[in-house]
């Protein structure tokens, strides 16, 4: 059976996804699952994501920026306050330079701008997982 490079580099990791769109969550869940990710929780806003993070301590958090209740930037700030080693990747349609810079300065490990292709998002997230797990 043929294996893609993504398959051969599969690594098991737990993750939570925060996005107010169920459609968007499903899309990124597909990318994460292909990489070996186990989606242990989904949140429709930043506060839910924060609660899940405190409860589940996932290996990876995927955060949207534009969300009700608590936006992605504030959620990122609070997650990093809780755990400075938290691994957060932002996946957002707000991808201007200043936003990317702000997210990285706050502690996000990478940034994927929507719309993305599954291959591109997979490459970015795989790279983050590899670096943060020393693999």
């Amino acid at each position, binding site marked *: 059976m043929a294996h893609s490079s993504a398959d051969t580099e599969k690594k098991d990791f737990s993750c939570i996804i925060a996005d107010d*769109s*169920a459609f968007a969550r499903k899309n990124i869940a597909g990318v994460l699952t292909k990489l070996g990710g186990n989606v242990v929780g989904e949140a429709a806003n930043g506060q839910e994501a924060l609660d899940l993070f405190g409860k589940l301590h996932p290996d990876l958090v995927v955060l949207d920026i534009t969300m009700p209740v608590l936006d992605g930037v504030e959620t990122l700030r609070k997650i990093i306050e809780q755990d400075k080693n938290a691994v957060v990747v932002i996946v957002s*349609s707000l*991808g*201007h330079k200043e936003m990317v810079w702000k997210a990285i300065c706050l502690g996000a490990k990478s940034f994927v*701008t*929507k*719309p993305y292709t599954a291959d591109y998002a997979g490459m970015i997230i795989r790279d983050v997982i590899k670096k943060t797990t020393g693999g």
Partner: protein
Amino acid sequence: MRFDYINPLVTTTQEVLDCTLHQTVSRGEVVVLQGDSIYGDVVVSVRITGDSEGDLLLSMDDLTALRICSTLTGDRIDTLTPENLDALVELGNMIAGNAVSALNDLGFDFSILPPEVSVRTHAASSLFKREALRIPLMSDCGEVDVNVFLGAE
């Protein structure tokens, strides 16, 4: 509507639709509306905040909405349930997010609020008084009008 808003808005909206539908999207004549109402069987609205307040509205007919939902989800969609409409809401989020990001990279300061979708309702009457940019985009799915209200009333 400020002249320097127009090009980034027109270019990014077409690019996002092109990329998400995996189809060649053509652009009709961009028009400036003054006091016109926005009507579509389905309207996705995104509030824009920052340097000036405004709204971005995607309007389309039922059939176009069904075809776009089918294309985005990869499933055959026959009815516009809230779950199916969520794909259109996300499309609105991506178009508005990329549009304001393009403006922000030019030195403006805008953000967006989470989008909302309405079926068979006119856009809020407060919007009618404002100048808007209408960008008609044609694809195999049908026509989507991107209406942007940005600037002083």
